[in-house]
C-alpha cells in the first residue's frame, strides 16, 4: 500500500506545480488561429503587434472583441459589442497583427490527473468558430455532417462542401493551431478525440465501406498523413516549450518488474483452427518431416528419422536473384497443405545507386509455392510471389493463401525559405531570453540574408506511397487496386504504415483480393476468419498534451471477399499483444484485457471486456470484469486460454490470478490463485486436461538462483487449483530456452518435454547436462502425482545453444512415440518408452 500511495503522492505534487509555455508564430494581417491553453491574460495580445482580436459566441450569435489599442477598444464598445475577456482552447480567433511576431501562452497549474476531459466540444445550432482543443490533427472528412470553412494557407479559404462554381480547395486538416468555422443544424456535443480514432467510412449496418472512392484520393490521404506526421516537431514549435516550475524528480519507489510468464512476451504455439494452416519452422506432412535449415526447407522420411539413419534430407533451396545477381534473403517459415510447400522469406533488395523508389522498396517479401512430388520427395513446379514490405503473418485455407504485409511509404520533404522583412526584430541581435525565444530558428545565408524555413507547408519533393507485388506473371503491379478496400483513420498525425491482407490462389499464384488498413497499429491479430487492428493514437485528453488511454479496435473479415465488419473503442489501453483474443466458442466474441493509463505513468488495476460484434458495424458489451488485481498494484499482464485467463500484477512475488470466462456475460475472478515462488518465465495451458504448466528458475530465501522449476497445476475446478506435482531440474548452472521461447516446450498425453542448458562454466554434482528432457506426469494408487523423468538425449553437444526457430514436435511412427527437437537447423529424434 505504501508503494502505491507514495507514487500517487509524487504525481500529485508534480501536477500541482506543472506548467508549460507554447509558442505560435503569428503572421502580419489577418489570421484565424486557436490557442493551446485557456487564458484570461489578454495582455498576450500586445499593442506593438496586435490591432484586433475577434471570437464568436455561437450561443447568442454575437461577436466578442478585444484590442490592446484604446481607440479600437472604444470603437468596439461604441457598437455595443461584448468585450473578449478570456479565451478557451476550443475557440477559434481572428487576429489582426501589424507584423510577424511570436505569441506565447502558458498552460499553468494544469490538473493533469483531473477527470475532466477536453475531448468534446458542444456546438450550437448555426455557425461556431472553433479550434481543436488538444494536440492533434484530424481529417475534416470525419466531420462531414457539418459544413466547415477554414482560412489558412496563402490566405485561402478552404471548405468541405463542393460549390460547383467555386474552386475553393478542400479543407486539408483540422488542428489546434488553426481556427475553423463549423455549421451545425442543431446543438450537439462532438467528441473530437473519439472522432480522431474513427475510420473514414460510409454506409450503414452491414453495408459499411471505406469512404475513399478513387485511387487518387487514397494517394492524397497517404501523402497528406506522411507530410503532417513528418513536419510535426517544427510545425508545432512546441519542442521549445519549457517547464515553468520544475520539481526535483526523485524516485520515491521503483517496482521490481520481472518476467513471470504473463508479463513477458513469451508465447507458445499459436492458436490452431481446423482447416487453417499456419506457417512454422517444422511440419509433419504425409510420410515426411519438413524443417527449416538456414535458407532451405529440408524434408526427410519419418521412417529414417525414427531409425536414426544417417542420411541427407531433400533440400528445397530458397534463393532469389535478379540479372544473375543473388539477393540477400532470409527464410522465415513455411506452410504445407494440399500437396504444396509455401515458404516465406524476406529479401533485402539493396541496389547500387538506388533511386528514391528503390530505397523505399528495399524490404521485400518472397513467397514461393512448390507443387510437391512424393516418393521420392521433390517438386514438379514452383511459382514466386514478391511483395513490397515484410510479411506480418499468414494463413493457408483451402486453395487460398492470405498474407498480411506491412509496407512503410516514404516521403522526402523540402521546406521553402521565408525571408525576414527588414523590419523584423531578429535583425538586431540581443543577448536576452526573449530574443532567443523569438529568433532561435532564424538562419542566415552567405549574403547575410535572414530567413526561416516554412515548416507549415513543406513541399513534397519525392514520395513513394503504395506497395507493389509481382505474382506468377512476373509483372510488378499495384497491390492496392480498389479504393473501397483502403481504410484509414481520421487521425492524420501518425505513422502511415500500410497493412495489406492479400489473397492469392496457390494453384495459379495469382492475386485474388487485397484489403489495406493504414495507421500506427499496436496490434494486428489474425484469427480464423477475421483480422483485428488496434490503435492507441486517439487517447482521451486531460490537458493539451496529457492523456489517459483509449483503444480503437477495428475488425475485418478476410476470407473469400475481405470486408470491414465493426469498430469499437475502450476507455483504456491494451497491455500487450496478448491482450485481445477471439473466443473459441463464438468467433463473433472477443475478450480484451486493458488498464487505465495516464501519460504521467500511473496505471490502473485492469479490466477484461467481453465484446460481441453485432453485425451492424458496432460491438455490444456482453460482460466486464473490473479491478482485476489487488488495489495496491496495477495489472501488468493477462493471457487468455480457452475459457480461462491468467492475470498478474506488476509485482514478481504476487500470485497469478485465475479468471473464469466460461460465462460470457459474467466474467469473474475465481477464488483460486497460483502462488509463485521463484522467477516464473513461461505458462503453458493444456486444453485437453485443463492443466497449467509453469517453467521458471528456483530462487532461495536469500534470493540466489537455483535450478529449473517445472510445476503442473490442475485448474479444472478454477476456484480450487491443485498443484499436481513439481520438480527442480539441475542447479544454478542450468536454465531453459523455454524461458525465452515457449515453442521449445512440448506437452502431450501427460508427457512434458523441454530443453535444459547449462552455462558451461563450471559444474557441481547437481548440475544436469544440456539436453532435451522428458517427464511423465503420473499418479500413484493413493492419488499422489509426480513428474517422472523418462529420458534425455545423451549428447549435449547439439543443445548448448538455441535459436528462435527451435521447436519441439511429437511424432508417432509404427505405434511408437518420438520426440523431435529442431535446434540450429538440425533435427534430433528420440524414441520415448511406452
Amino acid at each position, binding site marked *: 500500500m505504501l508503494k502505491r500511495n507514495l507514487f500517487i503522492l509524487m504525481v500529485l505534487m508534480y501536477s500541482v506545480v506543472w506548467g508549460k509555455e507554447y509558442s505560435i508564430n503569428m503572421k502580419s494581417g489577418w489570421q484565424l488561429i486557436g490557442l493551446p491553453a485557456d487564458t484570461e491574460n489578454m495582455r498576450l495580445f500586445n499593442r506593438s503587434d496586435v490591432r484586433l482580436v475577434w471570437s464568436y459566441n455561437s450561443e447568442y450569435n454575437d461577436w466578442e472583441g478585444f484590442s490592446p489599442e484604446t481607440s479600437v477598444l472604444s470603437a468596439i464598445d461604441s457598437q455595443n459589442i461584448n468585450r473578449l475577456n478570456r479565451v478557451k482552447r476550443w475557440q477559434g480567433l481572428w487576429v*489582426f497583427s501589424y507584423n510577424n511576431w511570436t505569441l506565447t501562452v502558458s498552460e499553468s497549474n494544469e490538473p493533469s490527473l483531473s477527470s475532466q476531459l477536453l475531448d468534446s466540444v458542444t456546438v450550437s445550432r448555426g455557425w461556431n468558430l472553433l479550434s481543436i482543443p488538444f494536440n492533434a490533427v484530424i481529417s475534416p472528412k470525419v466531420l462531414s455532417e457539418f*459544413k466547415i470553412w477554414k482560412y489558412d494557407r496563402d490566405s*485561402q479559404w478552404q471548405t468541405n462542401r463542393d460549390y460547383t*462554381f467555386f474552386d475553393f480547395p478542400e479543407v486539408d486538416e483540422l488542428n489546434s493551431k488553426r481556427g475553423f468555422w463549423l455549421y451545425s443544424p442543431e446543438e450537439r456535443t462532438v467528441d473530437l478525440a473519439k472522432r480522431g480514432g474513427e475510420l473514414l467510412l460510409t454506409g450503414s449496418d452491414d453495408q459499411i465501406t471505406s469512404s475513399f472512392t478513387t485511387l487518387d484520393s487514397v494517394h492524397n490521404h497517404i501523402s497528406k498523413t*506522411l507530410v503532417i506526421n513528418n513536419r510535426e516537431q517544427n510545425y508545432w514549435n512546441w519542442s521549445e516549450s519549457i517547464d515553468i516550475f520544475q520539481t526535483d524528480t526523485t524516485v520515491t519507489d521503483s517496482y521490481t518488474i520481472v518476467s513471470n510468464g504473463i508479463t513477458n512476451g513469451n508465447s507458445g504455439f499459436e492458436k490452431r483452427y481446423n482447416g487453417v494452416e499456419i506457417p512454422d519452422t517444422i511440419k509433419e506432412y504425409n510420410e515426411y518431416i519438413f524443417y527449416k535449415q538456414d535458407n532451405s526447407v529440408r524434408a526427410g522420411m519419418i521412417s529414417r528419422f525414427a531409425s536414426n539413419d544417417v542420411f541427407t534430407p531433400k533440400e528445397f533451396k530458397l534463393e532469389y536473384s535478379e540479372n544473375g545477381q543473388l539477393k540477400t534473403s532470409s527464410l522465415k517459415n513455411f506452410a504445407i497443405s494440399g500437396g504444396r510447400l509455401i515458404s516465406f522469406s524476406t529479401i533485402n533488395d539493396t541496389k547500387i545507386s538506388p533511386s528514391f523508389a528503390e530505397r523505399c522498396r528495399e524490404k521485400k517479401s518472397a513467397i514461393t509455392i512448390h507443387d510437391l512430388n512424393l516418393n521420392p520427395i521433390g517438386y514438379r513446379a514452383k511459382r514466386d510471389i514478391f511483395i513490397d514490405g515484410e510479411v506480418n503473418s499468414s494463413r493457408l485455407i483451402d486453395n487460398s493463401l492470405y498474407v498480411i504485409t506491412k509496407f512503410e511509404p516514404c516521403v522526402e520533404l523540402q521546406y521553402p525559405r521565408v525571408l525576414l522583412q527588414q523590419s523584423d526584430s531578429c535583425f538586431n541581435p540581443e543577448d536576452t531570453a526573449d530574443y532567443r525565444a523569438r529568433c532561435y530558428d532564424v538562419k542566415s545565408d552567405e549574403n547575410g540574408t535572414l530567413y526561416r524555413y516554412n515548416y507549415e507547408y513543406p513541399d513534397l519533393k519525392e514520395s513513394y506511397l503504395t506497395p507493389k507485388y509481382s505474382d506468377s506473371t512476373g509483372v510488378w503491379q499495384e497491390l492496392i487496386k480498389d479504393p473501397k478496400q483502403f481504410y484509414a483513420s481520421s487521425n492524420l498525425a501518425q505513422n502511415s504504415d500500410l497493412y495489406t491482407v492479400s489473397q492469392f490462389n496457390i494453384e495459379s499464384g495469382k492475386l485474388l483480393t487485397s484489403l489495406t488498413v493504414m495507421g500506427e497499429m499496436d496490434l494486428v491479430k489474425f484469427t480464423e476468419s477475421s483480422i483485428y487492428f488496434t490503435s492507441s493514437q486517439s487517447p482521451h485528453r486531460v490537458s493539451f498534451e496529457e492523456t489517459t488511454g483509449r483503444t480503437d479496435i477495428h475488425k475485418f473479415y478476410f476470407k473469400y471477399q475481405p470486408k470491414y465488419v465493426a469498430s469499437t473503442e475502450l476507455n483504456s489501453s491494451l497491455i500487450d499483444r496478448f491482450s485481445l483474443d477471439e473466443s473459441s466458442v463464438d468467433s463473433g466474441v472477443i475478450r480484451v484485457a486493458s488498464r487505465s493509463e495516464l501519460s504521467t505513468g500511473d496505471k490502473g488495476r485492469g479490466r477484461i471486456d467481453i465484446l460481441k460484434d453485432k453485425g451492424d458495424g458496432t460491438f455490444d458489451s456482453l460482460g466486464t470484469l473490473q479491478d482485476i488485481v489487488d488495489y495496491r498494484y496495477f495489472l501488468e499482464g493477462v493471457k487468455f486460454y480457452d475459457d480461462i485467463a491468467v492475470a498478474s500484477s506488476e509485482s514478481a512475488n504476487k500470485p497469478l490470478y485465475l479468471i473464469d470466462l466460461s460465462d460470457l456475460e459474467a466474467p469473474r475472478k475465481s477464488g483460486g490463485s497460483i502462488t509463485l515462488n521463484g522467477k516464473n518465465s513461461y505458462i503453458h495451458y493444456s486444453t485437453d486436461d485443463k492443466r497449467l504448466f509453469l517453467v521458471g528458475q528456483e530462487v532461495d530465501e536469500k534470493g540466489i538462483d537455483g535450478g529449473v522449476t517445472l510445476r503442473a497445476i490442475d485448474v479444472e475446478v478454477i476456484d480450487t487449483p491443485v498443484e499436481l506435482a513439481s520438480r527442480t531440474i539441475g542447479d544454478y548452472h542450468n536454465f531453459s530456452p523455454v524461458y525465452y521461447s515457449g515453442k521449445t516446450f512440448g506437452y502431450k498425453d501427460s508427457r512434458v518435454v523441454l530443453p535444459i542448458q547449462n552455462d558451461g562454466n563450471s559444474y557441481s554434482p547437481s548440475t544436469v547436462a544440456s539436453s532435451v528432457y522428458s517427464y511423465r506426469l503420473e499418479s500413484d494408487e493413493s492419488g499422489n502425482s509426480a513428474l517422472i523423468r523418462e529420458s534425455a538425449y545423451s549428447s549435449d553437444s547439439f543443445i548448448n545453444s538455441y535459436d528462435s526457430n527451435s521447436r519441439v514436435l511429437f511424432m508417432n511412427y509404427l505405434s511408437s512415440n518420438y520426440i523431435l527437437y529442431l535446434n540450429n537447423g538440425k533435427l534430433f529424434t528420440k524414441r520415448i518408452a511406452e
Partner: protein
Amino acid sequence: MRIDKQYILALMIGAAALLSGCNDNSTNLQDDTGGTEVSPNNSSTSDNQSPPPANSSSSTSDSSSDNPSSSDEPTSNSSDSSEEDTIEPTPVCEGEECIELTDGTKVNRAVPHPIPTSTNDEFPPQPPVI
C-alpha cells in the same frame, strides 16, 4: 482567374441572399478582394532547400540526410504557386478600409470572408468592420 470566378459567384450568392432575405449588415458589397490577400513573404516560397537534419523523422526513409543540397530543383507545388502569382497580381488595398502594416503593406480592415457580404447557412458570419 480565381478572382473572376469569385466575383461572378459573389454576385450570384449576393443576389440569392437578397432574394431569400438572408442578407447581413456587412458594408463591403463592392469588395471583391476577400480571400485573395497574400502574405508579404509569399514570393520567397520558390526558394527551396532541405531543412536541417533535425527535421527528419522515422518514416522519411533517410530522405533529408541523403539530399542535403537540392535547392535548385523546384517542386511542382512551388512552380504552381509562382505561375499563379504571375497571372494574378497581388491585390492592393487602398483607402480608409485599409490598415498599414509595419512593413508598409496595406491590408483590409474587414475580416476575410469567402464571399464578402454573404452570411447565411452556407457562409460564416463576419464581424463589424472596425
